[in-house]
């Protein structure tokens, strides 16, 4: 209940925070018409996730307007855009985390492979085992490092024996690049780690259930540059086995880690292109204005 309310508040706070950012130049940009449909290459062949005409509402307030997008297999796609443009909302509808918000409604066709995400028959627990999520603020459970990583596999009964579980934990921590730092203190608390380590622990926790897609909601915004660099490296390695969608405020980060970049503007998907194209030759005026820093 309260999670919902707080999230709702947070989203509203985001909207409020966005307002002062719309400066004089932004106002002039507002005259720029939205494109009829998303420019660039929103669709790919054989997508992992196929999203069509997605609309998201908070009560009567429409946060996402008719977004259609494909997420390719083993690709890293970054979602960028000014604050309050709906990137996080969009991301959260991909593993139905928006379900926790009472007033939030998602419409449209969202598919993971052939599976309809909003099929009433689909068990959301199963979906979240396939689509994992890493949050903005590192949120390890106040349990031991081992238990943090083992939590997901235990929930889903992925390991029958202690030995198997140990192996999953070790592999996940290795994949998250954390193994060497924590192998001697697996049973000390996860909250005692540094911010960057905590975030990698959260990533290890997410990949411990072997999801197919990993959603990352500004995973580095609470971290220092060195920790950020480590996570970015990690994203690069993870893309070999996982499909990754990452929301970021840092355009450099988007440029460094992603294969494709989607630019959101006030709830609309303006442009999707190969990352290089977006940052060198953006097709749409709004995209250009944003990446050149005329508004943020």
């Amino acid at each position, binding site marked *: 209940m309260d999670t919902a309310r707080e999230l709702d508040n947070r989203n509203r706070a985001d909207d409020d925070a966005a307002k002062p950012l719309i400066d004089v130049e932004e106002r002039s940009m507002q005259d720029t018409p939205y494109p009829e449909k998303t420019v660039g290459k929103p669709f790919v062949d054989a997508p992992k996730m196929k999203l069509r005409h997605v609309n998201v509402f908070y009560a009567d307030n429409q946060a996402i307007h008719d977004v259609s997008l494909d997420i390719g297999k083993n690709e890293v796609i970054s979602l960028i855009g000014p604050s309050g443009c709906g990137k996080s909302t969009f991301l959260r509808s991909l593993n139905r985390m928006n379900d926790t918000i009472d007033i939030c409604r998602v419409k449209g066709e969202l598919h993971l492979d052939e599976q309809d995400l909003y099929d009433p028959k689909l068990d959301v627990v199963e979906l979240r085992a396939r689509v994992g999520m890493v949050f903005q603020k590192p949120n390890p459970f*106040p349990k031991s490092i081992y238990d943090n990583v083992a939590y997901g596999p235990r*929930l889903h009964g992925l390991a029958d024996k202690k030995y198997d579980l140990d192996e999953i934990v070790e592999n996940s921590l290795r994949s998250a690049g954390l193994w060497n730092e924590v192998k001697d203190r697996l049973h000390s608390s996860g*909250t005692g780690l540094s911010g960057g380590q905590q975030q990698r622990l*959260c990533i290890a926790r997410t990949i411990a259930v072997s999801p197919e897609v990993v959603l990352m909601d500004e995973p580095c915004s609470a971290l220092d540059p060195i920790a950020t660099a480590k996570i970015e490296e990690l994203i690069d390695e993870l893309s070999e086995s996982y499909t990754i969608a990452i929301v970021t405020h840092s355009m450099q980060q988007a440029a460094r880690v992603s294969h494709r970049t989607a630019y959101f503007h006030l709830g609309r998907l303006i442009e999707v292109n190969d990352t290089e194209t977006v940052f060198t030759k953006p097709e749409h005026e709004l995209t250009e204005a944003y990446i050149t820093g005329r508004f943020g």
Partner: protein
Amino acid sequence: MSETTAKVRKSLARRYRQEKRFQAYGILSIGVGLLALLILFTDIIGKGHSAFFEHYIQLEISLDRDVLGVDDASDDEQLNYANFGGVIKEALRERFPGVDDRQQQRQLYALVSSGASYNLRDELKADPSLLGGTRNLWLLADDDVDLYLKTSEKKRPEARLGDQQKQWIEDLEAAGDTEKRFNASFFSHGDSREPELAGIGSAIVGSFFTMLVTLCLSFPIGVAAAIYLEEFAPRNKFTDFIEVNINNLAAVPSIIFGLLGLAIFINLFGLPRSVPLLGGLVLTLMTLPTIIITSRAAIKTVPPSVREGALALGASKMQVVLHHVLPLALPGMLTGSIIGMAQALGETAPLLLIGMVAFIVDIPGGPTDPATVLPVQIYLWADSPEQSFVAMTSAAIMVLLAFLITMNTLAVVLRKRLERRW
């Protein structure tokens, strides 16, 4: 110096003065509080400490078979009907010869507590070979004698005893035949008309059973209600209504709960009166709002990020609550419950209405035996005319306070120990 700086400097002195004054008010109020507490404690301890000791009188007693009417000391039946009173009276007459007047004799006999015969019986039971012999034995003194021995020399002339009695007591004291001992029976005996025999034993046991029933009912119900309201309930008019009413219940005077218990539990459901089970039920009703409110507050402090993390891993709502919310909120819930229990332990008014104000001599053996509780026992003794009960009342208050302080300390320690940071 610029104009602004000058103005700031001028206002600074005033601001600091204000701050000092503000702090002084705070210190003053804390001081008043501490002073009140100090006065309360000095008064209670000053009055009550003497009740933890009682006096014994030594008499040379001949356990004569004929007077006692016992010829086999190992026979319980005979001991139960033995005339121990007669033996004691004889011993007293021998100790102070020449008391022939009937009224004087009665005064003499009053030196020893009526409970002394039980002392004697126990002694004889423990050692049957005493029968027929003569022994120096310590007997419990009457409460007036006890009080007289406890008062200082200066105040003794004002005591409520006859001059003759005072003389006897002085004689006994001078001969070293009086002794002050720790009053163990204060903790083990039930209530009695005789202050020297009365104790808080039955009240403590009654309080224990009452609290047990209260805890067993109010903690699970309160926590379950809090979790449902906080985590699962939809937010609508109905749940708002419930929330308002829970807050209202917390403010309802406790005597109303007593009336409710009387009307519902006794009259409607026909539960027996004066029993801890009933007291526990009534106190559960009273404690529930406190536990629900504190538990909900504890649940609210669990950061949403932890819930989200678990949900995103595919935990169901139930699993999120059981694995994450409950362990993190538990210290707060326990603290709230202990504070609620402490409140219930000190509660008197509702229990008066459901008959727990009875005069209970026996120690209750279970939650369905008639019992009284500590605060009610205090209330009863405070009402008693015997002077010795003044000290007993204060002593009982000290015991109650000790329990309350222990519980509240436990609450603080638990909170400190189990508190987790994230």
